[in-house]
């Protein structure tokens, strides 16, 4: 391996994907998951909400939450059987910030930053930076530009627990 740095841990926002039993997929066509799975609900929401789609997750009780930047889209989300949550940043915007961070950090692993990604529940790109390590200036610049769409999180422990624990 490249170096023996302490691993930075990103939050594994593990979400219950609820059902999954039954519903044999058709092996010849493949509109992937069977109707009614959380994957299906979120995919349908993405299609309907378009630019205002901000991601989805399964909450602790197994219900699907769909995030949107458009308060007027709440009813559409409910019609899919999901719970709407209005947030500031769309999924496309967060994906764009994530890609910019990747491009800015380049291909070489950094000893300060090893993980970053879209945290749907937090509606932000979360970048884990090891305590005591300098934040790369190009990353700091992006974080300044992005406001609360990009959050730098200092981590001490090499292990980040699951949310809610």
């Amino acid at each position, binding site marked *: 391996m490249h170096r023996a740095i302490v691993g930075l841990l990103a939050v594994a926002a593990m979400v219950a994907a609820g059902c999954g039993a039954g519903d044999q997929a*058709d092996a010849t066509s493949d509109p992937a998951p069977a109707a009614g799975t959380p994957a299906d609900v979120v995919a349908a929401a993405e299609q309907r909400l378009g630019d205002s789609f901000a991601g989805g997750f399964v909450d602790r009780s197994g219900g*699907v939450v769909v995030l949107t930047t458009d308060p007027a889209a709440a009813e559409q989300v409910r019609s899919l059987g999901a719970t709407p949550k209005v947030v500031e940043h769309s999924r496309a915007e967060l994906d764009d910030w994530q890609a910019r961070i990747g491009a800015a950090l380049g291909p070489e692993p950094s000893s300060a930053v090893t993980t970053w*990604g879209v945290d749907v529940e937090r509606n932000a790109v979360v970048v884990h930076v090891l305590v005591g390590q300098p934040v790369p200036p190009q990353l700091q610049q992006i974080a300044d530009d992005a406001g609360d769409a990009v959050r730098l999180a200092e981590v001490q422990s090499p*292990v980040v627990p699951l949310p809610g624990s």
Partner: protein
Amino acid sequence: MTADRWVEVGDGVLVRRHAELDLSTGLVVGERGALVVDTRGDPAQGSALAEAVREVTALPWAVVLTHAHFDHCLGTAAFLPTPVWAHPACRDDLARGGAAQHAEAVAHGSTRPVPVRPVVPDRVVADRAELDLGRRRVLLLHPGAGHTDADLVVVAGDVLFAGDLVEQGAPPAFDDAFPLQWPATVTALLALGATTVVPGHGEPVDTAFVEAQRDALAALAALCRDCDSAAEVVARSPFDEVTTLTALARATRRAAGSVLPTRQRGRL
């Protein structure tokens, strides 16, 4: 055709053995969550894998992709919404829309008329990260270039999911490989201390198997560096001709493109 089956290789660590391409996917189960290692080669295969996982555990899951080749990463949709982990370069590859993966699938006999649009991983780990599944920690690690430049391996206790950095039952695949660096990358894997290694294709193996494969990779790398003729490389290679010539092409392209070709020749 043999039915797909689970093989338990450790406490809460399972391998799904697939008839298709002799693929091996993985599942690590903790007290609060599970991690799925690779998602197979198309959405229907991914759905079948998701159902198989649900027969093992009802816990929340996350996904990690070992690399961006089609047979490992095109079944992810069935697991959404969930965090999907990958190396940054794997993420970037999948973000290009799936044309490369489609070409690979077609080369392996797929008759699918249109590409599967890949799920783009949303969590990247460039070097290493550790996930806590609840009384079960798993390490995600990029050990260096090898089968591709974006391989991630997963360590769960004594078990290492090596992706296609290790192959059982077929020679290593060099199409997107870095043949001169691959041996050292496998050496790094051996240093992780796992006793069971799960290849991306084939049956779980022990460290002696991995050492032997590393030695074969190193022998081929040396031939690629030192031999003057392709015929000589093929004649002395531990691998078949097609595998060897693919590796040689990759090795010489890398050497030619390297900023330090002479130093590269001196290493290993």
